[in-house]
């Protein structure tokens, strides 16, 4: 209380500190949500000199219970910029810069962007973005603190390349459970099946029809359980029309009642004709629009009627009657149809998509899914679900309060200061001096001990982690993802450039998706799709894996793995152009390939004319040169792989 200046408090405590002072350092905060807001406040008051903030979202009403940098009047504005404005109002001297954009896809956030900062802090709500930032930090050798919270629990984990476990060292449980297609389309038995179906339906009616992940919702006669039933199918009068095709015709003379009858009557009748399915199950009861309007009960089982006194006071938490859901369905379909038409108009003149994207916070979207899911549940004799619960099941909602976020943020900032203290002052060398005093921190209420905050020692990195093990540096390919096709990737980059023959190409984002399979013949349709249609982002790592069998000597059979990192750039305008960054990695791969494969084909045509020369990246350590110039005769590689690390060497 006698301190003479406002900053003296901090300096008072950092008298003995070595390493970087907060004032001299710059931090990147990814996410300006619950934890993000608290972090920014704490960082600002701890006098961090420079802060960058990335967030792609706009402010919503449901954020206001914890994201205190925002007020009601800010609803609809970008989080990043509003948060920065609020911080500047309190700390006018701070250098804080908002970036409104998607950390996954925005080309602004490349490696040189991350390199500007001393430290990166994740305050994200999803695994995918976390994995991406983790990867970028590993590539740039930046220390990362990953923070998170669910309800009353939270965590702050430190990640240093090669020193600790990275975010991907331990496989993350799947965020979203997946369900068998047949269960969703034919034989739902739980409320969640109906909700998943309703979300598929939304995408069929209003969503992105180009999306290959968009599932059909009509009955699926290929159900393995229905195997013996084919004859019946053929004699049956109902011919199957997929909702997608049906809706395209229907949208012209749009009638919600007809949609209702198609979904809840015609399709169900068709389902009941698949007799094998109902041998052990209760058969669904189709319901027609006119009749459904008269059903006042809540469910065939009278569920929800037992105790009025325990009925929730909030309307959204109540189960409504079938007739209410019919009305809700019709209303929301009308609302969404209007919006969908408007969206298509907007798309004509702007870069916005032509379709709607389901949003748990949007009332019409939520009403549509609630109504459709419950009508289907009614038909299948499944318990109904209130709008409130549908929201959390469909939207994967994680409960959150300001208190936990404040604790997490407070700890994260303390950790950030400790990390900075280990960074050599006035140097851009980010090798940490010592990390022995650092720990991971978990926040959870332990009922037995009453303890809330636990620190856990840092874990050693997982040696076989795809992302962080040093053994395999990825080959970095710079391309325009919205132009570059799978076919180009396969033929030009993987086969021609990396000299692999027919590898499996696995998307290493934790999903285990296989982009190209070595066993299957290529699907031509799929090969012509551009990479962004597979939701691949800037920084995605592809794992190309191939077994080389040596027929003469089984012992020589070897497994060849190459990591390929995709980097997106808008500057490439030609669909076949690509740029390989980091030539020396290819050199190493070629070396090892050479060892493994003494007889690689030499009959490659030279079709690298399209590879662009790169002036913009001259300052990068690993310069990229036009590959044509470097095409060398086979016997040259052995001599110049290592000392000529700036160049790309073609193996031929």
């Amino acid at each position: 209380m006698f301190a003479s200046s406002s900053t003296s408090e901090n300096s008072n405590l950092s008298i003995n500190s070595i390493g970087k002072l907060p004032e001299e350092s710059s931090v990147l905060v990814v996410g300006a949500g619950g934890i993000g807001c608290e972090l920014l406040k704490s960082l600002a008051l701890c006098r961090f000199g420079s802060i960058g903030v990335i967030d792609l979202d706009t402010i919503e009403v449901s954020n206001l219970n914890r994201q205190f940098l925002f007020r009601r009047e800010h609803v609809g504005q970008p989080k990043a910029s509003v948060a920065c404005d609020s911080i500047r109002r309190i700390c006018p001297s701070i250098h804080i810069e908002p970036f409104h954009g998607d950390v996954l896809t925005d080309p602004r956030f490349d490696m040189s962007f991350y390199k500007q900062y001393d430290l990166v802090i994740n305050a994200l709500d999803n695994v995918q973005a976390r994995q991406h930032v983790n990867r970028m930090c590993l590539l740039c050798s930046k220390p990362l603190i990953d923070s998170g919270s669910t309800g009353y629990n939270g965590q702050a984990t430190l990640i240093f390349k090669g020193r600790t476990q990275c975010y991907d060292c331990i496989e993350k449980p799947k965020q979203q459970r997946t369900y068998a297609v047949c269960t969703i389309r034919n034989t739902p038995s739980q409320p969640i099946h109906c909700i998943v179906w309703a979300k598929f339906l939304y995408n069929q009616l209003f969503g992105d029809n180009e999306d290959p992940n968009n599932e059909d919702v009509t009955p699926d006669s290929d159900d393995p359980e229905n195997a013996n039933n084919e004859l019946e199918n053929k004699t049956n009068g109902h011919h199957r029309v997929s909702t997608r095709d049906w809706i395209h015709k229907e949208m012209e003379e749009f009638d919600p009642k007809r949609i209702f009858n198609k979904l809840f009557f015609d399709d169900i009748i068709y389902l009941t004709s698949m007799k094998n399915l109902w041998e052990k199950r209760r058969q669904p009861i189709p319901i027609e629009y006119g009749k459904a309007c008269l059903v006042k009960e809540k469910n065939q089982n009278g569920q929800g009627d037992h105790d009025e006194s325990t009925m929730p006071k909030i309307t959204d938490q109540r189960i409504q009657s079938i007739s209410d859901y019919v009305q809700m369905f019709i209303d929301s379909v009308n609302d969404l149809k209007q919006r969908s038409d408007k969206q298509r108009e907007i798309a004509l003149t702007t870069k916005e998509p032509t379709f709607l994207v389901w949003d748990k916070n949007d009332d019409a979207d939520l009403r549509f899914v609630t109504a459709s899911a419950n009508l289907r549940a009614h038909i299948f004799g499944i318990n109904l679900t209130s709008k409130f619960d549908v929201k959390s099941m469909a939207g994967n909602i994680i409960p959150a309060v300001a208190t936990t976020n404040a604790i997490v943020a407070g700890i994260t900032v303390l950790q950030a200061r400790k990390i900075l203290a280990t960074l050599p002052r006035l140097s851009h060398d980010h090798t940490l001096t010592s990390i022995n005093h650092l720990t991971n921190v978990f926040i959870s209420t332990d009922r037995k001990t009453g303890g809330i905050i636990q620190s856990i020692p840092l874990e050693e990195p997982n040696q076989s982690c795809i992302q962080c093990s040093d053994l395999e540096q990825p080959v970095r390919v710079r391309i325009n993802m919205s132009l570059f096709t799978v076919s180009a990737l396969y033929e030009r980059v993987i086969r021609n450039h990396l000299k692999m023959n027919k590898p499996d190409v696995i998307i290493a984002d934790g999903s285990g998706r296989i982009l190209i399979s070595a066993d299957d013949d290529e699907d031509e349709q799929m090969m012509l799709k551009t990479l962004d249609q597979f939701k691949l982002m800037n920084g995605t790592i592809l794992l190309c894996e191939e077994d080389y069998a040596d027929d003469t000597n089984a012992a020589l059979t070897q497994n060849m793995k190459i990591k390929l990192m995709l980097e997106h750039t808008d500057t490439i305008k030609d669909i076949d152009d690509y740029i390989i960054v980091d030539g020396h990695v290819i050199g190493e791969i070629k070396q090892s390939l050479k060892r493994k494969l003494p007889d690689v084909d030499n009959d490659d045509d030279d079709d690298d004319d399209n590879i662009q020369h790169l002036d913009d990246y001259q300052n990068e350590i690993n310069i990229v040169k036009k590959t044509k110039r470097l095409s060398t005769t086979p016997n040259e590689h052995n001599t110049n792989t290592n000392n000529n690390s700036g160049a790309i060497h073609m193996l031929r």
Partner: protein
Amino acid sequence: MSKISGPDTKQIQYDRQLRLWGDHGQKALEAGRVCLIGANALSTEILKALVLPGLGSFTIIDHQLITLEDCGSNFFVHPSMIDQPRARVTCELLKQLNPDVHGTYVDKPCIDDLLKQNTFDFAQFNVVITANLPLNTLVILSSHLWSLKIPLLVARAYGFIGTIRLQVVEHHIIEAHPDDTIPDLRLDHPLKSFVNHCNSVDFNSLTREQHLHMPSLIILYKTLQQWQKQTNRIDIPRTRKERDEFKQILEQLSHHSAYDASDLNKSLENFDEAKRVIPSRLVNTTIPSTINNLFQDRSCLELSNQSHMFWFIINAMKLFTQNEGQGLLPVRGEVPDMVTNTNSYVKLVEIYQEQAKKDCETIHNYLIDLLKQHNRFSTMSSNEAATLHELVHIYCKNATFLNVMRTASITNEDDSLKKLIEQIPLESSSDESESEVSWYIGLRLCDAFYEKFNRYPGEFPLSTNDETNSDQRQLEIDFSDLKQIGKQLFNSDRQQSSIRENIVEELCRYGASELHSISAF
């Protein structure tokens, strides 16, 4: 998406927390009236965490003016506000966070005078929170609140450490929101209606479909019946050997004549589930010791006209367990989800809910009798009486988790402190990092220092850069003063050793400064 309209907006705004503490929790928060003494960084951060989720109202008591130092630690104040009353400014800024919350402030007289005059009505609050309040004021306040039975929360941020101390005469825990619970299904003491339902099932005459959809709960009970018959027992299997016998019977029941050989590979989800849930289903149903303690509590044994409703209901519940309950608590009435068709599941839910309703009814009747005995019923408003039923229902649903929390009064703390110090081992293993008690003692020393010098150790104006030596000297003087105080306070060689030098030194270095990132949590 910014359709703003009355109660709906409120639900959207609070959506994420409603999923955490439910609508009862939200209602309690919205009815909350909080008094906060001190308008520093710590207190505003505390209030922020209450205002954002929708507290009812708050009152800030603070007589100081904003200093530059406040701007360094408190997010809510700005250098342009220096010399304005802290209470007023923070109150206004906090109200901006959430327009639904009412906030007032008292900026004079100061808290000490307020307590001396004894005119301020603390009884209007549900809880009083202090933030970095000096000990002598705290002692007066705490005894005042103790007599009013108003809970007091003492929060403190001191350099890199922080403490929270609760003083509460009696706090009733009713809806505990436990993380994971073992469902109350009582296979060891099956409900009569459940036994009847199970007996109507004959495993030998099931159709294939019935067999496939048999709920795991019934499978387990059937297995248990056979096991009991086979072993001539009436309880549940306990040892590993007994459980193995049990599993064998379960395995036998899973075979059905309608399956052909190829079907054997088919998984029987309901039987798999039965096997999986054995640990949480084959449990002894007992009354938890916490509840037994409540039953034996003086407040429960000596009900009076003035007793809290909590104790009336506890007493009614006790009567139930002694009579109808046959030594057990009322049935909770919840059946966990299981693999089966809807009708079988609903049937089970009905069985358990019916019993729960019955039990709840019985306890309600006991409660009315008790209230009448103590002349409480006649004085109740009809509204109050009408809510009794729902209240009993909530108690029954949470019966296993009911509890009461009581703390010592702060005035009596010195006694317990002395006891604590005696427990500290003389030659403490030094590699063990500083125990919490040592830190606590250290903080108490700082309090004593404050009483003597009217400032905390290490708290003095920093000199200009070229005189850092004098700062260092002052720090050393404070350090030895603080050690001296420690000697006087505990006045014995044995206790002396428990005051760790390193802790005392660290405390001096803090200089009672309030770090934002510490206050923030």
